Structures are given as structure tokens and as C-alpha cells.
């Protein structure tokens, strides 16, 4: 027995020298190891996107058109944005079941201010987001300070907000939104040149930050990514962005009288939110502390982190993002009714985060997950609609996909526990 332990000790010693570069091949091998060790990252979502597009394109050729692609992106908007907020709550190992109806409440506030009282759009948007912040403060307070499990708090809020929307909308009237700025979010497109310029800016910005980061690391003698890997990433992003912009800049109108082309306005809106929250999570102490609280609350407390404050702020971010999602939903429907943010919006948003790779157990996840997962979910809804399957199948398929994603999550957790 002691002989074997001594051997493993020796083995550990031999394996110590740090291997920082094995070339591009070594990088890929490392990635393969991580995936097998249970850290799959975006892989399931990306594979899902590819498989779904192939299936739907074969089943219904109109799926694979620029027209439908633009549709898909606008449809994904609200789900993706609400999912981004949920990532913060999920990172703590909590859940917010009320995010859907919270978005409904905020959308109702927006619609009432704009349509009933005639305020300008920015007042309505500000009021909706402030409503979201207040909702988040309340939920966070009940969870962190009073100590009620988030499942119960937000289930109660789910019911209460459903009622609030009804009350705000006077028992079910439908308030239409006519403000041009709000409507344009989900219904207008950028001029092709602007699309190209923003796309180029995105790639350039990404390349610059990558280059600066890696050069800094090299200068300090820290292990850095190979230039080939950096180039691979930048070129990959450039190709992706280029393809998306090129497809969306095609003429989609079948009517010769008016033109329909350009990147939907919602795309840069989601892009800015993605950048903002990714920066917060990855580059600030606040983001680090969110991961720490989600990973080991006691360790975070002992490290001097104000755990309660972190938990409350996660709920605030979640509800504020739900407000933004509600604004997008109002824009898409051009109106707000008692069903805005209701029915399956919340489940779609949770599914988006989880399918993208955010763990339900806390401590693992990225804002990008909500974008990728949201696209998968939207693709299912959109594709099945085009193929002509009934809602019954849509619900069943979405449920199965969510379960699949949760299984991948549970499985990778087991994997990484076993590999340690």
C-alpha cells in the first residue's frame, strides 16, 4: 500500500515540468482533454445548432433562407436577453422563476408610459429598467437577507407578477406600442454599410484585445497562447461575422416595391449587452466574486467577500435584464398584453442558459451561453413552425432538449468530479 503511494508520488514529480507549448496540435489535444474531462463549454450548443439547421433545411427548404435567418435572430432577442440575466442567478446556484413575468411587468410599465401617457421612449425604457432593478432588489433581499430559498421566492413572485401584469393592463386589454424607436429594435434593419462597419469593428476590437493580452503575457514571461491559435480565433470570428453580415445584407424582399435588407437592430443591441456582461464577469472583481460565491459560499465569506451583497446584485442584474427582454418582446409584438413574458418565456430563457453550458449547480457559466442556447431554442421553435408541426410537438421537443442539456450538465459535473 505504501509502495503504491510512493510510486504515485514519484509519478507526480516526474509529470511536474510545465509544458506550455506543444504547438497548435498540443492546443487541440488540450482542448480534447478538457472536453473529455467534462468541461464541454459551447460544444453541445454549437453541435445542436449545426444538427438542427441541417434537419430543418432538409425538411423545409424555406428554413435555410436569409429571410428566415433574420427572423430567427429577431425571435431569439427576448429569450437571449432574459437568459443572459438568468446566467448570473444560475452562477450562484439559485434560480429565478419570475424572470418571465418580471419582463411582462416591465414591458407593461413601458407601454403604459409610452402609449397611455405619451412619454418619450427613453423615459419608458428607463422606467422599465428601474422597475426591473426594484424587482431584483426585492427578490434578492428575500433570498439573501430573509433566507427563503430562491425557488420559493421566485415561484411566489411568478404568481404575483402574473397578477401585476393583469392589474396594470386593466384585466387584459392589449396596449399597442407605437413609438418608432422601440418598434425599430425588433422590426428594423441597419443599412448594409453600417452592418459591415460594425462587423469590422467587432473583429478589429477582438483582435486588438487578444493581441494586447497575449503580448503582455509574453512580456512578463507567462505562458501565452501561440500566435497561430490567436490568428485562428481572429480569423474564425472574422469569417463568422462576415458570413452573417453578408447573408443579412442580401435582398430579402419578394416585393419589388420595397427593399428588405440589413442586420436586424436587435443584433448589435444583444452584442453590446453580451460584451458588457462578459466584461463584468471575466475582468472585474465583482464578476470573480460571483463565481466564488457560486463555487463555495463559505470560502467566499472567509475571503472577506460581502456574500449577501453579491447575491442581491445577481438578482438585480437578472431582473434588469428581464426588463430589457420585456422591452424587446414589446417591440417584437408591437404591443403588450397579459401574456407578454408569460407562458413559456421563462422556461425558454432558462433552457437557453443551460443548453449553452451554464450549470444548474452554480459556479459555471458564461453570458455567451445564453446567446448560443437561445439560438438553439429559437431554431427549434422557428424550424418546427415552418415544417408545420403543431405546438404540441414544439413543447415536447423543447422539453426534451432542456432535459438533454441538463443531463449534459449533470454528466459533465460527474466527469469533472471523477477526474479530480
Amino acid at each position: 500500500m505504501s509502495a503504491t503511494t510512493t510510486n504515485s508520488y514519484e509519478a507526480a514529480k516526474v509529470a511536474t515540468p510545465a509544458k506550455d507549448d506543444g504547438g497548435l496540435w498540443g492546443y487541440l489535444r488540450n482542448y480534447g482533454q478538457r472536453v473529455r474531462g467534462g468541461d464541454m463549454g459551447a460544444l453541445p450548443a454549437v453541435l445542436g445548432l449545426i444538427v438542427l439547421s441541417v434537419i430543418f433545411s432538409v425538411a423545409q427548404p424555406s428554413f435555410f433562407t436569409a429571410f428566415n435567418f433574420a427572423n430567427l435572430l429577431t425571435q431569439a432577442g427576448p429569450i437571449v436577453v432574459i437568459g443572459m440575466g438568468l446566467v448570473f442567478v444560475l452562477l450562484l446556484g439559485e434560480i429565478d422563476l419570475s424572470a418571465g413575468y418580471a419582463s411582462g411587468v416591465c414591458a407593461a410599465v413601458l407601454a403604459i408610459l409610452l402609449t397611455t401617457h405619451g412619454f418619450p421612449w427613453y423615459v419608458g425604457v428607463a422606467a422599465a429598467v428601474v422597475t426591473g432593478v426594484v424587482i431584483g432588489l426585492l427578490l434578492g433581499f428575500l433570498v439573501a437577507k430573509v433566507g427563503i430559498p430562491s425557488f420559493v421566492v421566485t415561484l411566489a413572485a411568478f404568481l404575483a407578477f402574473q397578477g401585476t401584469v393583469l392589474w396594470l393592463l386593466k384585466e387584459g386589454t392589449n396596449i399597442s406600442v407605437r413609438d418608432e424607436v422601440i418598434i425599430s429594435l425588433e422590426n428594423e434593419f441597419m443599412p448594409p454599410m453600417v452592418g459591415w462597419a460594425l462587423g469590422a469593428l467587432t473583429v478589429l476590437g477582438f483582435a486588438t484585445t487578444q493581441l494586447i493580452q497575449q503580448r503582455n503575457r509574453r512580456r512578463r514571461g507567462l505562458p501565452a497562447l501561440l500566435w497561430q491559435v490567436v490568428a485562428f480565433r481572429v480569423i474564425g470570428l472574422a469569417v463568422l461575422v462576415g458570413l452573417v453580415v453578408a447573408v443579412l445584407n442580401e435582398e430579402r424582399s419578394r416585393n419589388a416595391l420595397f427593399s428588405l435588407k440589413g442586420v436586424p437592430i436587435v443584433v448589435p443591441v444583444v452584442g453590446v449587452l453580451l460584451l458588457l456582461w462578459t466584461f463584468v464577469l471575466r475582468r472585474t472583481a465583482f464578476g470573480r466574486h460571483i463565481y466564488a460565491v457560486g463555487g463555495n459560499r463559505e470560502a467566499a465569506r472567509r475571503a472577506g467577500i460581502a456574500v449577501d451583497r453579491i447575491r442581491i446584485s445577481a438578482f438585480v442584474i437578472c431582473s434588469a435584464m428581464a426588463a430589457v427582454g420585456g422591452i424587446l418582446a414589446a417591440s417584437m409584438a408591437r404591443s403588450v398584453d397579459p401574456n407578454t413574458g408569460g407562458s413559456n418565456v421563462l422556461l425558454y430563457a432558462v433552457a437557453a442558459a443551460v443548453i449553452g453550458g451554464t450549470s444548474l449547480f452554480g459556479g459555471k457559466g458564461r453570458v455567451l451561453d445564453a446567446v448560443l442556447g437561445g439560438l438553439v431554442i429559437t431554431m427549434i421553435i422557428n424550424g418546427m413552425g415552418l415544417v408545420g408541426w403543431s405546438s404540441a410537438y414544439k413543447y415536447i421537443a423543447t422539453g426534451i432538449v432542456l432535459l438533454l442539456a441538463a443531463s449534459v450538465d449533470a454528466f459533465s459535473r460527474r466527469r469533472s468530479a471523477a477526474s479530480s
Partner: protein
Amino acid sequence: MGTPLLELRGINKSFGPVQVLRDVAFTVHPGEVTALVGDNGAGKSTLVKCIGGIYPIDSGEYLMEGKQVHVHNPRDAASHGVEIVYQDLALCDNLDIVQNMFLGRERRSGMILDEPTMEQLAQQTLASLSVRTVKSVRQRVASLSGGQRQTVAIAKAVLWNSKLVILDEPTAALGVAQTQQVLELVRRLADNGLAVVLISHNMNDVFAVSDRIAMLYLGRMAAQVKTSDVTHSQVVELITSGRSGALGLAEEGAAA
């Protein structure tokens, strides 16, 4: 033998009617490993928590480097260079080694985390402790072995220019080889000039690395001696009965 780094005199601590520490004296010297031993309930953990500022002391003197200080909370203790490595290691599995070592005290430039500096400092700290068993400081803590995790927890304590590192049963959950690694690390800390307090139930560990042994018996300091001056069985006797020959507490019966 110079000024002790930490000197406690006449420490008393009660929880309600229960007096857990009774007139305890305790000294720790820089460059030495002081083992703190005692049976369950003897007051080891309470004494450590008093040193770390988690429990305020009821009465007694707390001197650092010969000067009296007042320690009311963990922050005070940390400002005097006292770091405690608890038994349950208080690491976040989902974060990597660097992130754990700087948790709650992240280096920033402006609003942004200064990752390269933190990574460099973490590497330097591990190198100064001659830790070679860690492949990359960007590894997740979840992927580390028990001994490596203990190493990270200790390195985290050392990172903050600490003068006194208190280790609460660092080898309790480890296998033979890993125990050896951690004990070597403990010895190296002292050889680097730090004062180290090692709480342990394992007499082999205690005799392997300590310079002095302090024995608590029912909330009192039975004896504090040089490790080379006592035998294994004397220490066991002191732990279990509070006295051994000329060493230890005076006979209770004589006073009564």
C-alpha cells in the same frame, strides 16, 4: 532566543458558564514550527480562533513582536500578519489556483483585474515554497489532489506577507506521500523565517517537523517544551493527564 513573534499571557476565554481557556500562556518564535497538541476539547481550536481574531479574548495579553496589540476581528489579525489555514480548506473548486490565492484581495489596475501580475505573484510564491507538484497555476482547484489543495491553501496564506501561519490539522485527510509533501512544506515555511503553528493529532508529524511542542490539557497550557527535550510517551502522557513527571500542571489535589 530573541523576542518571540507572538506571545500570549494569561488568556481566559469563556462561552457562557463554560471556561474553555484558563490562564493560557503561549509563545511562538519566528523560524520555528510550534506544534499545538491536546486531546479533543482541550481548547486548541478556541485558542487558534482567539489568535485569529474570530473570538475576542475575555482577558489576557496579546503581544506581537514584544508589543501589546488588540485583535478584535480577523482583519486585525491579518493586519498583524496572522493567517490561518483551516481544516476545511475554504477553496473554490470552480476557480483556478491564482483566482483562489487572490480571492477577496484581487489586484486591479483601475476597474480591471490585473491577471498577469496575480499570476506572476502566485508563481513566485509557489516557487519560493519549492512547490513543483503543480502543473499550471491556471488549473482549476477541482482537478488537484488533497495534498496539492493543502499546498494552495498554505501558499494563499503565505502570499500576504504573513509572519505567523497557523495550520489546523493540515495532514488529517492525506495519504502517506502527500502528508510527507505537506510536512516538507511546513518545514520550509519555518526555514524561510516564518513562525508556524501546527495543530496535529499525529505524534509522528509533530516529532517530524516541530521545534517546540505546546500541550493543552482541559483549557490550560500543560507545558511548552523543546521537541528535542521530550519523548513520544511523555507528550502522550501530558496530553492525556496534563502531567508527566516534573513536567506539566501542578497536582490539583495539593491545592484542595
